[in-house]
């Protein structure tokens, strides 16, 4: 890992990323799948790509998962 890895990682974009609006539209469904141990990322790869890149949406995901008593993904 070179000195520029963090910047490179930040600048890389995933074409599968669905964006905040679509990800948040199904967040409750996604969270229930994760909480149930079902492979949510396989069912919603675009949401998974978004949550990996968007800090605020990832925070909402973590909060909702905690609220339903699930563990982190």
């Amino acid at each position, binding site marked *: 890992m070179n000195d520029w890895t963090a910047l490179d990682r930040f600048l890389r974009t995933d074409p599968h990323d669905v964006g*905040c609006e679509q990800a948040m539209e199904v967040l409750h469904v996604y969270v229930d799948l994760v909480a149930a141990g079902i492979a949510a990322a396989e069912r919603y790869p675009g949401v998974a790509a978004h949550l990996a890149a968007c800090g605020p949406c990832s925070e909402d995901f973590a909060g909702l998962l905690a609220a339903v008593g699930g563990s982190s993904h």
Partner: protein
Amino acid sequence: MGLLETGGADAPPVSRIDPDALDPDSAEWLGALGGTDSERQATLVRLHAMLLRIARHEVHRRSSHLRVTGPELDDVAHQAAADAMVAITAKIGQFRGESRFTTWAYKFVIFEVSTKLGRHFWRNPTVAMDAEDWDRLPDRFGLEPTRASESRDLVAALGRAVDEVLTVRQRQIFVALVLNGIPLDALVAELDTNRNAIYKMLFDARRKLRAALVASGYLDAETQRYP
């Protein structure tokens, strides 16, 4: 009054999905919300108490990276729970049973917490919107002081790319989020827009900046997967 009907004159519309398609807990919630006035009122009180508990937990979960404490945090939780109740009662007809009812409902309060904490940032901002200090960039990305010369070159190249390839709006968003470290939800509040619009602008800016740094030889073009 049954599950598939609405309540009194001022009652919220209740979801029209088949109760048999729901898990028992969700069916019970919708049944109670579509029940008699007293049953519905008692259920709304119970729902508000649950939302407030979730909101309090959520603001405390996030408090380690907030400059909000004590009574202010509790105020945010109360406001979030109250506004989530309004949203839920207005939109309950949109619940389609794709998740548990409580998960669907909790989503509203989590979103309200995010929105309110974003607005709260501007009560005591640590940085101005128009600040622009490129010296912060190495810290933002952990560029090592021992490789100062390389870091300076990369920062200078990134600065040139920001000036040359970004639109005025993309530049404003990049500077606010990346250089100034303004939380995205705070920027949403300041610019009176939505999270998706800001994210899309930053997404496009990232893509353009990376392409520029690849073209100038600072970053590798090949797709790389990180753990």
